[in-house]
């Protein structure tokens, strides 16, 4: 049984089909990247999985349980966490307090809150900044905070929305390290990412969306040489 199954998923914004008839399954313990040009429906996919937006058709199952139509906080409590592309820290709280909210709520409720918080902070290499107010962090550190807060919920599935966007090479390398650590700790990771070197380096598998359709699915090397993928990114010769 796959951890997450997406079956014939569609989402229309009025007339616009943001996602059309997409199916895939995510195996536990893997890192999967979802890539695609701007507007391909990558972030919409995350919004649908987390219940932030209602879907038009299809079904999403998590551990064989149908989560379509569930409230966002209930989905979070089942073990799906999300790290936002544009970091949304609780600005007036310290780094520790931010992550503590994840540990207090999320899956399995409030057990070992302090220890879980510390572990998540260490995993995201934020332990030294624990007492700083979140508003004082750099963009790169805020991304780490997003991941730490998500991991503190004891999620089994982390949806990370462009964790490397806008980061410099050093910060990107640090983020990739954190994501690997997260996987080593038994958390399945799904990434939406634009930074192709990072995607190639970290992913076990790549899904390619274009205009709401799934056009490729496979190991990074295979997908990178797929003519359909190249066409989606660069345009086809006859269209030019």
């Amino acid at each position, binding site marked *: 049984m796959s951890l997450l199954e997406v079956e014939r998923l569609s989402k229309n914004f009025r007339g616009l089909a943001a996602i059309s008839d997409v199916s895939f399954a995510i195996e536990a313990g893997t890192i999967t990247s979802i890539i695609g040009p701007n507007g391909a429906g990558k972030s919409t996919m995350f919004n649908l999985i987390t219940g932030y937006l209602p879907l038009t058709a299809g079904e999403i199952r998590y551990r064989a349980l149908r989560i379509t139509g569930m409230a966002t906080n209930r989905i979070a409590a089942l073990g799906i966490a999300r790290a936002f592309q544009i970091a*949304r820290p609780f600005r007036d709280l310290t780094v520790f307090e931010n992550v*503590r*909210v994840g540990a207090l709520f999320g899956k399995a409720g409030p057990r070992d809150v302090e220890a879980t918080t510390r572990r998540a902070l260490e995993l995201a290499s934020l332990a030294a900044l624990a007492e700083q107010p979140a508003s004082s962090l750099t963009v790169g550190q805020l991304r780490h905070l997003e991941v730490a807060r998500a991991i503190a919920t004891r999620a089994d599935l982390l949806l990370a929305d462009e964790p490397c966007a806008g980061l410099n090479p050093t910060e990107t390398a640090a983020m990739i390290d954190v994501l690997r650590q997260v996987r080593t700790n038994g958390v399945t990771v799904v990434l939406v990412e634009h930074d192709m070197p990072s995607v190639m380096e970290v992913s076990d598998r790549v899904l390619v969306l274009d205009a709401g359709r799934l056009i490729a699915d496979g190991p990074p090397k295979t997908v990178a040489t797929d003519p359909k993928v190249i066409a989606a990114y660069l345009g086809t010769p006859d269209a030019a």
Partner: protein
Amino acid sequence: MTRNPVPVFLLVAAAVVVLAAGPLFLPPFYVRVGQLMLYSAGLGLAWAILGGFAGYASFGHAAFIGVGAFTAGLVEARFSTLPTALLLPVGLLAGAASCAILSALIAYPILRLRGTFFAIAMLGVSHVCAEVTNNIDFFQGSMGLNFPPIAPASWDPANFFYEVYLAAALLILLVSWQIRRSRFGAGLLSIREDEDTARMLGVPTERYKRTAFVVSAVLTGIMGVIYAHSLGYITTESVYRDDTNLSLIVYSLLGGMGTLFGPVIGAFLLVFITQVILGRLLDFHLFATGLLLVILVLAAPGGVAGLLKRKRAAT
């Protein structure tokens, strides 16, 4: 987050002892001022459970003062054969229950509004309640309601109500302290900071907001019932007051929004300034209060608590 809860606890305990002994040495005028301070502090604390912790600033909490007061008055009139000592408890129960019911009924629709929209909708609730009380004979809002004297014969009523206010304010402080340090409190703070993210982390935001709203309304209603008894006679105008609606926000702004002691500091400060320092200036005092507020909010956006924090961070 206080890192040294024992000294803070001792400080509060000492303050309560001094305050409780107040009527023994204060002249009557200052006992009245003290009543108003404690009443305002209690209201400010109750307001802040929703407005300060969860970030839903209500502009109409006088609704619950009025509903609590009028329910208590009408219920007590039907239980007039009860011993005097039981009247206040009965009134408190009735007032708290009616505020719980009213807030629970309006919680779902009104808490879907955010920010200014919520504030204005609450102002509307307060005005609707006032109009209903005023225009439906059953509620006797325009005629007025009498409250039986409940202070024990051996006790000066002013001193008696001073102590009742102190007890109620202390109860509300304990409730908000417990909330602040609980999981529920952490959830409310995360809602204030970013409601969508909070939900994404598994915080049951809708349920928490509703609970905070009901708790805040009930505690406000309790204060309203005591207020009505201390006045002895109330009309619509004396409990549904827009200056109360406004002041409750000001207490938190002045003392420190979202902090535990902010509303207490703010209420004490504002009451002292308006009643004692500016009390003799008559109409001029409203102007002076307004000016003072503008200066304070500009100079110290975090309120008094924010100033203290900044000073501690600097040393």
